[in-house]
């Protein structure tokens, strides 16, 4: 071995610049935070939209379905009939069309045929007993969540089956019975006791409050408003809900050749479209204009396409018999100043009477809650009850769905049932209700049962479109839902349209920006001129090296999905 001679180095090496803590230059600081996507914050059922779409994107529909079922037992139903406010809130909306969230949800729901129901695991038994009155979507959702929390649940239902308006009112051309059945499989799986043929009164409820640890009232709004005009009691004049209920019970009423439907809501639309399918010639009478109709826009459009005639600005005055048939005496209206509901008040036009011949008249001007109980007066404490997640003046009685002060859609019913279950559980386990509410509400909107169960914290902020960096998303065509031609669909009660194909659903899911949830895209890391991004996620998001970050804000700008925000540095 030869000995190495120590040599003078040719170059003196320098030190690095780590001693230079450039973080002290900073007056703005990037804050990384998981946020709620606007779609998820607005979903009345509280669907975990970003997480199920992320799985759908990868083609992992089992997991996608499992995510949904944490929050909503009825994805096949909601994917079909929900008016999808999520899509209007979608950050992609003004860019190149919202993500067709409902179509993806529908596919995931139907995927239960292959994956199985994917019901989450039930918590250990708590020994608490909960009664639910009414097996509509609200009662079912409440029962579902309460059962998952380990409570023993009994549902008491007046009719002979579960489903509420899903099976009693929404016609098969929009919601086939098999679809509802698929979503309702959880009743057996979670050992929920369903007692049918039990009509419960207000005093029964108060008695039950003594026998059960809590009672959730979810009896819907089934009392049809009366027109209050002469001739309303004549044979052949039927309330819309009754008409639809009979039809769904397979004792289809035969509407006369000429049917007049009075009203402009969903009940009016479905009654009209069902009567049309049963062979009637249908005219809808509505006292305001198309713009004020409370029915879902899609339903109105489909009714028009199917050839239903609309007489706007027309109201009935009287119904008379005329030989074997009837006559509806009507009056034209004009729009006056706004009423309490914020819609213009229809005002009769003098001397504008006209007549319509009718064999059947279907009245569908709205439904109200049949229940009249001391613990709940539907008009007085509406807002309080809604803010209190269904808690009433009786601390063992809760109310949800259409029976309570909630918007009347299936998704709202599911969401309010979930809130009631959580309010019940929080009460039974002695949790601070206000703290729970705060913790599990996403961006002030939707509520997550999964977050309630896990003890985590729901994201408080919602990603606004201005926080999205659209440069990172190519414009792509939106999935167009399949439909059936009007002349084809009016031939019967077969379902309109179809669930999208898997490829199309995956492609649509890939359009999702994943707003508010870090996908580890690496933009912040890549574009930081100070190499100050710590990419190892902590709580699901990266962080900054505050020793060197100069607070330039490039990371916040270049984050595609609104996770980073600049805040003023504490002095």
């Amino acid at each position, binding site marked *: 071995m030869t000995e190495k001679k120590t040599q003078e180095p040719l*170059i*003196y090496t*320098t*030190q*690095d*610049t*780590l*001693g*230079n*803590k*450039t973080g002290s*230059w*900073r007056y703005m600081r990037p804050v990384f935070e998981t946020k709620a996507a606007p779609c998820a914050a607005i979903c009345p059922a509280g669907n975990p939209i970003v997480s199920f779409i992320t799985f759908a994107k990868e083609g992992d529909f089992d997991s996608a379905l499992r995510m949904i079922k944490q929050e909503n037992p009825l994805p096949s139903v909601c994917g079909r009939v929900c008016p999808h406010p999520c899509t209007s809130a979608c950050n992609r909306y003004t860019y190149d069309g919202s993500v067709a969230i409902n179509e993806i949800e529908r596919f995931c729901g139907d995927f239960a045929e292959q994956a199985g129901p994917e019901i989450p695991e039930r918590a250990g038994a708590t020994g608490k007993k909960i009664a639910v009155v009414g097996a509509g979507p609200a009662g079912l959702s409440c029962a579902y969540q309460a059962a998952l929390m380990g409570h023993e649940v009994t549902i008491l239902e007046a009719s002979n089956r579960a489903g509420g308006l899903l099976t009693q009112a929404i016609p098969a051309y929009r919601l086939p019975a098999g679809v509802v059945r698929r979503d309702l499989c959880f009743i057996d799986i979670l050992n929920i006791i369903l007692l049918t043929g039990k009509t419960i009164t207000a005093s029964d409820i108060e008695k039950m409050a003594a026998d059960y640890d809590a009672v959730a009232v979810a009896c819907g709004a089934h009392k049809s408003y009366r027109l209050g005009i002469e001739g309303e009691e004549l044979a052949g004049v039927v309330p819309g809900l009754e008409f639809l209920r009979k039809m769904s019970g397979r004792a289809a009423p035969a509407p006369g050749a000429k049917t007049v439907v009075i009203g402009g809501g969903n009940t009016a639309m479905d009654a009209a479209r069902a009567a049309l399918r049963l062979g009637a010639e249908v005219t809808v009478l509505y006292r305001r204009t198309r713009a004020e109709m409370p029915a879902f826009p899609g339903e109105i459009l489909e009714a028009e396409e199917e050839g239903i005639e609309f007489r706007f600005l027309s109201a009935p005055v009287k119904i008379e018999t005329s030989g074997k048939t009837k006559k509806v005496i009507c009056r034209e209206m004009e729009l006056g100043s706004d009423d309490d509901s914020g819609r213009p008040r229809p005002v009769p036009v003098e001397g504008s009477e006209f007549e319509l011949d009718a064999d059947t008249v279907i009245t569908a001007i709205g439904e109200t809650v049949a229940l009249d109980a001391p613990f709940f007066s539907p008009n007085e404490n509406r807002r309080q009850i809604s803010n209190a997640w269904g808690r009433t003046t009786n601390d063992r009685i809760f109310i949800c769905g259409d029976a309570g002060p909630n918007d009347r859609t299936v998704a709202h019913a599911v969401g309010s049932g979930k809130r009631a279950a959580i309010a019940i559980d929080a009460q039974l386990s002695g949790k601070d209700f206000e703290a729970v509410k705060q913790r599990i509400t996403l961006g002030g909107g939707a509520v997550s049962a999964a977050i309630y169960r896990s003890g985590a914290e729901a994201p408080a902020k919602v990603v606004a479109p201005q926080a999205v960096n659209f*440069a990172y998303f*190519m*414009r792509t065509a939106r999935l167009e839902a399949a439909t059936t031609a009007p002349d084809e669909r009016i031939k019967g009660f077969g379902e309109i349209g179809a669930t999208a194909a898997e490829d199309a659903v995956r492609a649509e899911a890939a359009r999702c920006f994943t707003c508010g949830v870090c996908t580890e*895209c*690496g*933009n912040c*890391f*890549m*574009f930081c*001129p*100070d*190499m*100050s991004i710590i990419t190892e996620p902590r709580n699901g998001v990266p962080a900054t*090296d505050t*020793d*060197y970050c*100069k*607070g*330039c*804000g*490039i990371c*916040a*700008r*270049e984050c595609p999905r609104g996770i980073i925000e*600049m805040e003023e540095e504490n002095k």
Partner: protein
Amino acid sequence: MNVTVEQEFVCRGHVACPGCGAVLAMRYVLDVLGKKTIVVLPACCWSVINNRYPTAAVKVPLFHTAFETAACVATGVRAALDMKGDNDTHVLAWAGDGGTFDIGLQALSGAAERNDDIIYVCYDNEAYMNTGIQRSSSTPFGAWTTTTPAKTFKTKQKKNIMDIMAAHRIPYAATATIAYPEDLMNKVRYAAGIRGTRFLHIFCPCPTGWKTAPDITVELSRNAVRARAFPLYEVFDGTRYRLTHEPAQEDRMPIAEYIKPQRRFAHLTEAEIQVMQDHADEEWGRLMKVTETWPAG
């Protein structure tokens, strides 16, 4: 993002202004070239960014040299390495627009004419920033600088350095910018794989000199491409052209929108902005014509 920086050759604690685009350019280029690289650095912002001796932010050997000498010093370093039998270390001349378009042009032209085996990067922040924002021949028409104040803003168009380099028929010349790291790194990778004089013109927005918020550096870089103020393309052997990124129809933006957040252009009238627009359209049209007439294989 389809690419990442695997190895950091720029150290935190460097003293670039917050939001400096030139740092990102160095970071991406060195990641591709790797540790067997010697940087030759004339006077420019980067000689400050690197921090004072005995510290250095760049973690490969770096040679500070005079303002006008980037290319010839790089040639000399190359010759020394070759004499040592080391022909796989990259020699990277890294100069600003002033050091390239103006004072260093003759040295660069000499090296290019000899086809010396160096990679020359001009990081272009469109003025002499280091000395306090003086006009260079790369400063665009209309811009305010301290030597072209708003009242007598610069009335000459930006010099087309790519045409000059193409005229030398060097094996490779390309434009790149920091908002498109994948494109940038691909170009560096290609350059690293061949021999001879390779020239990269890297557009680097400068918040301080452009009077812009530091957070929009990358956005400005992207918008320059979208507005066709800075097209991304490459030229092989000085004769064959290829566009590497064409902004989608919906992503195109007028020059007016690109310059809007840059307060160095705040004084311009609509008519003056139109002059900029016409110039950009004309240059783009010419580029389209050459890419069609002499496409790269």
